[in-house]
């Protein structure tokens, strides 16, 4: 499934860079718990507003780069906190790469 980056041109969309992953959770409590857990492990993640095209209930998402992917997702899996949906930004599109398909 693909969604196009909307709104301003891609250069202005700094929050999610090309190649970044965007993990969307189905509740504010889960996303906050996930952030706390990942930050506690000093992983390079950032809590961001969910991109408009990937409308999420709580409007928040966790962003990380390819280098951190294995550790981030391993940590979340272990804690039973896997995201509801996982996307990767490639060029102008978000491609769904995990979660409820």
């Amino acid at each position, binding site marked *: 499934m693909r969604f196009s980056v909307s*709104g*301003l041109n891609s250069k*202005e969309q*700094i*929050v999610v860079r090309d190649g970044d992953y965007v993990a969307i959770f189905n509740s504010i409590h889960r996303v906050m718990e996930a952030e706390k857990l990942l930050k506690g492990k000093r992983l390079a993640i*950032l*809590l961001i*507003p969910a991109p408009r095209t990937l409308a999420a209930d709580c409007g928040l998402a966790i962003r990380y780069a390819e280098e951190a992917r294995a550790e981030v997702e391993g940590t979340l899996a272990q804690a039973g906190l896997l995201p509801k949906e996982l996307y990767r930004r490639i060029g102008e599109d978000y491609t769904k790469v995990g979660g409820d398909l």
Partner: protein
Amino acid sequence: MKNVDVRGLSCPAPVVSVKRALEEAGGELRVLLDDGAPRENVKRFAQGRGYLVQEEATEGGFALTLTSSAEHQPQPKGGVATGPAVLLIGSDRLGDGPEELGRLLMRNFIMTLVELAELPDRMLFINTGVLLTAAGSEVLEALEALGNRGVEVLSCGICLDFFKKKELLAAGGVTNMFTIAESLLGARSVVRL
């Protein structure tokens, strides 16, 4: 034609200086700047405001000539108030309620601004708001992007001093109460958070 030299300045200072110079000079401005991010950011900012941009390579950098195009209307909407649109951030939290939620909402708000087409001219950070502009803040990336789009980010010096963050300011500049008071009283609109 007025000239402004922003060579050697790092982002977002070139855009902020050009914005100020355009406000003062109006019609036409020649900007000397470094190639790379400063050139790209200033060009995008000027084009976004309806200016025609001519580029030429010069010794040690680039020169951009910004000319106001016919459709560019520098006057503010409504044509009455003339000051800047100011966003006053008086806390590192948004709304009343649990601290953790308030901090999360404020971060989310600032990052969301980056995605909007209409931005304030100036963001003033006071009291615990300055924690957002200091090292360790999670919105530094967003504040830099806002600066590159012409938003002036200013933090209260007294507040930075109080929180022992004077040496740790990581986004925008320091300001004093004169500028804060003048900005608020001279603004065409103030949104307080």
